[in-house]
């Protein structure tokens, strides 16, 4: 039964997307039907995921509930799905993040139905990716997830149409780089290869470097590490749709997840020797992001910098020579994604309303008490105040990084501090009443739904701080 549930969780959004495609727009051009279908599908899936948690042995450190689908093209003739605490936590947080992205759509005009249709397709492919149990299924969903997002970016980016192409090209390069090692591995062993058993494969001497380099580059292209960062920064600057922005900012998790699954287990010495170089690249990128976030005036730019500093922190955690961090990364990532998506939802609203102001956005939160409350709590949780799961788990991750390399760890802590400073400074500016001028247009606060969503997220974060898996019954 749980095995079937796994497949339902993967394919329910796909079925939902067909309903969204078939739904009619309202007379005023809005897509209330499509929105309702999307929200219901995601909520149902969240409930099913919580049900899956109850069937999971949380102490077992391997993929469980392995479910198989027959597909003759796949090596071994099957596609396998499975899950563990790490993947289920990520899937749950992605569902909640996209749900909040949909709530944020209220301020956006344009082809909402198309975006919601593609968003559910994206959710199917992402869920499939994180539940993939074998290498071939992993590769298939790794490729598939870029297509709906590319279309979403293209539909919303307006004049910046090349942004969508850039996004696709960078990610397509990553998928082709992954395809080479996958084909090479299956040419050696034409059987089902479970991703957790990948270290058991005996590779000929000269193949190891080729295979692991391909995989490494494929995953790193999904992450904003210099010099592979350009696609993500260019996409984030043009997007004005919170749902698509959330989707784009979820993409790097696929690269991170690839590293978590493959990295610690096996590495030929030639690649392992390069780890310090990549660590240096990571911290340099973190530093760059922290300073650019600090100097930037735009709300979204600061948010972008904050999100990617934390992604790179998790990547450093994966690079650290220990396997014990996996669980902490899962808990921290869950809390982090909730915080980030809540912030995206509010920032996009504030950003849109601030266009009505004659000068800067400073002081705008004085006119938006609900947004101010939610945003303040989310920032406090996001910068590491001990009110959420982010605090404890990041503490452990950072201490492991410091333990492995003091210099790298110190720079990482410094960038986190800088991120905290620019977020708190931004909060202060937005609440600075002295900057408000009289005679402005009416500024709207966030609606009750978004306020409720923000409050629920805070409650979830607080409960996760007390017990990470409090929802498992």
């Amino acid at each position, binding site marked *: 039964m749980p095995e079937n549930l796994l497949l339902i969780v993967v394919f329910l959004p796909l079925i939902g997307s067909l309903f969204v495609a078939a739904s009619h727009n309202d007379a005023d051009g809005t897509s209330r039907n499509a929105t309702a279908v999307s929200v219901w599908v995601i909520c149902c899936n969240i409930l099913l995921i919580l049900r899956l948690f109850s069937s999971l042995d949380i102490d077992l450190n391997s993929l469980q509930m392995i479910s198989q689908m027959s*597909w*003759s*093209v796949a090596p071994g003739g099957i596609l396998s799905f499975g899950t563990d605490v790490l993947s289920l936590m990520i899937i749950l947080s992605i569902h909640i993040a996209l749900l909040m992205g949909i709530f944020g759509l209220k301020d956006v005009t344009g082809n909402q139905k198309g975006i919601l249709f593609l968003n559910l397709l994206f959710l199917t492919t992402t869920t499939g990716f994180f539940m993939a149990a074998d290498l071939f299924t992993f*590769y298939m969903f790794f490729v*598939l997830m870029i297509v709906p997002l590319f*279309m979403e970016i*293209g539909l919303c980016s307006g004049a910046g149409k090349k942004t969508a192409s850039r996004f696709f090209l960078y990610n397509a390069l990553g998928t082709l780089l992954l*395809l*080479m090692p996958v*084909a090479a591995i299956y040419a050696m062993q034409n059987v089902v290869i479970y991703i957790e058993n990948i270290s058991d494969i005996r590779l000929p001497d000269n193949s190891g470097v080729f295979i692991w380099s391909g995989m490494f580059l494929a995953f790193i292209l999904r992450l904003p590490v210099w010099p592979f960062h350009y696609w993500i920064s260019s996409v984030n600057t043009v997007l004005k749709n919170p749902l698509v922005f959330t989707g784009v900012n979820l993409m790097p998790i696929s690269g991170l997840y690839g590293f978590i699954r493959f990295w610690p287990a096996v590495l030929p010495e030639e690649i392992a020797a390069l780890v310090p170089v990549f660590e240096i690249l990571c911290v340099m990128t973190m530093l760059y992001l922290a300073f650019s976030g600090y100097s930037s005036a735009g709300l979204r730019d600061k948010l972008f910098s904050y999100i990617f500093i934390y992604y790179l922190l998790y990547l450093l955690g994966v690079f650290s020579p220990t396997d014990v961090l996996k669980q902490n990364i899962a808990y921290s990532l869950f809390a982090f994604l909730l915080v980030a998506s809540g912030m995206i939802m509010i920032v996009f609203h504030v950003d849109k309303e601030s266009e009505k102001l004659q000068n800067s956005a400073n002081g705008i939160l004085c006119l938006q008490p609900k947004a101010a409350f939610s945003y303040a709590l989310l920032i406090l949780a996001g910068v590491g105040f001990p009110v959420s799961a982010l605090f404890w788990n990041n503490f452990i991750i950072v201490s492991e990084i410091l333990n492995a390399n003091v210099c790298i760890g110190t720079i990482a802590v410094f960038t986190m501090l800088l991120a905290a400073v620019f977020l708190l400074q931004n909060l202060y500016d937005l609440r600075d009443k002295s900057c408000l001028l009289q005679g402005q247009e009416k500024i709207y606060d966030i609606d009750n739904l978004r306020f409720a969503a923000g409050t629920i997220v805070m409650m979830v974060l607080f409960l996760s701080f007390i017990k990470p898996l409090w929802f498992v019954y």
Partner: protein
Amino acid sequence: MEEVLGILGMVSLMVGMVAVSIQRIWGGFSTKDYFLTARATVIVSVACSLLFKGDALGVSYLATNSQTLWIYVFTSGIVYIWLSLSLKWFVTKDLPSCLFCFLALVGLLSCRVLSSTENLMIMFASLAVLMLINFLFLYLSQQTEELHNISSRYGLSALLFIMLAGAALYILSPAGWNLARAAEISSGFGLLESYVVIAGFLFVFIFALAVAPLHFWFADATAPAVLPVAAYFSLVPVLPLWTAFIKLHHQFLQPLMHNIDDLYILFGILSILAGAIGANTSRNLRRIFAGSGIFHFGVMMLALAVLPDEALFSGAKYIQIYLLTMTGIYTVFYSFKSRGDYLYNLNMVGGFAKVRPFVAGTMLFFMASLVGLAPLPGFYGIWSALKSFADVRCYGLMAAMLGCLMFLIPAFLQVVRAVCFSPRKDNFDRTENNIYVYLVLITAFMLLLICQPRFLHIL
């Protein structure tokens, strides 16, 4: 009796040709009548071929087996769709369609003979007929100076390669025309004679298949030609030509020249490069997809070089999936119409997705399959080719193929941007119902292939 019944499929095509000619002589028939006769002929021919299978005219001339039969059914299906879609062009332009339908039936007959023959003379006669039809289509549809020049260039080049093949046939002499014995007889030739024989047979096919370095005519001819002619070049003769070439390679070229694989690799790499570069240098939709075609033909050449003998014919599946996808793409092209004219440039189709979302969606689906996106059918071909290269540790070939695929993707992204993301620039004509029907059928067939790839085994 069985032999006579076995050729009923071909005889019905000849009867169809005669019927079209009689319609022309008697007069009073409309454009639609010619097309109706031609399509009915195709259906009758396929029905006869399916009902009365068996060796036709003995194994030494035309051998029908389940593979050649399937290739004929597949090609006939494409011809049927192509004829149905092309009718509108003739009706709109109010042009006589008798010769067009007649040539279509001759082309189909040549394809049937080409894919099932076991005799080199018959193979090259049917190949020459196919080249003649290509030339006639170009020559008769010439509306511009450019097309006139292209048809002349094509005619002269085709003549040169046919003469080269003729010389090879002459050297072989009738005793060596039987494909099964040709390699054995040729092995006794001197070095010069052997090279002439190999070059004669190889280059005429390389030219007809549009494999680099003899690919130039394919994009040049499809881009400016009228849509029905461009569709013919891209869809109809491709599969029979590849089937015949695989047979020639397996039974004759490879046994005669063991290191011919190196030549294939060279041609293959040139093709994938030329295809990817060619697709990116144009804003003409047909030229972009012609470039994609050359790329796929290059992959096919690379696969022929590394596939083991027993898996050679599985390479034909790659071409079948490619053709199925291209049939879908050309069906979409028939819906790119404004004020009665078919649109062929990316600037003209801006915002098409906003008015015809279903058609644009299917086009995206077909393009995703062409670039080998998993799990779409196009991926099976790319995956098989990559695994074949990996089997023999040709990592360089893998990298070259994927690198060129990466170069091809921007060309397709141009198309997506124009069709889906650009603002609407023109009013598009109503899409005919038969276009929707064919798109639904092709998409359903491809979805069936995704869900049940075992279905590919009958391909």
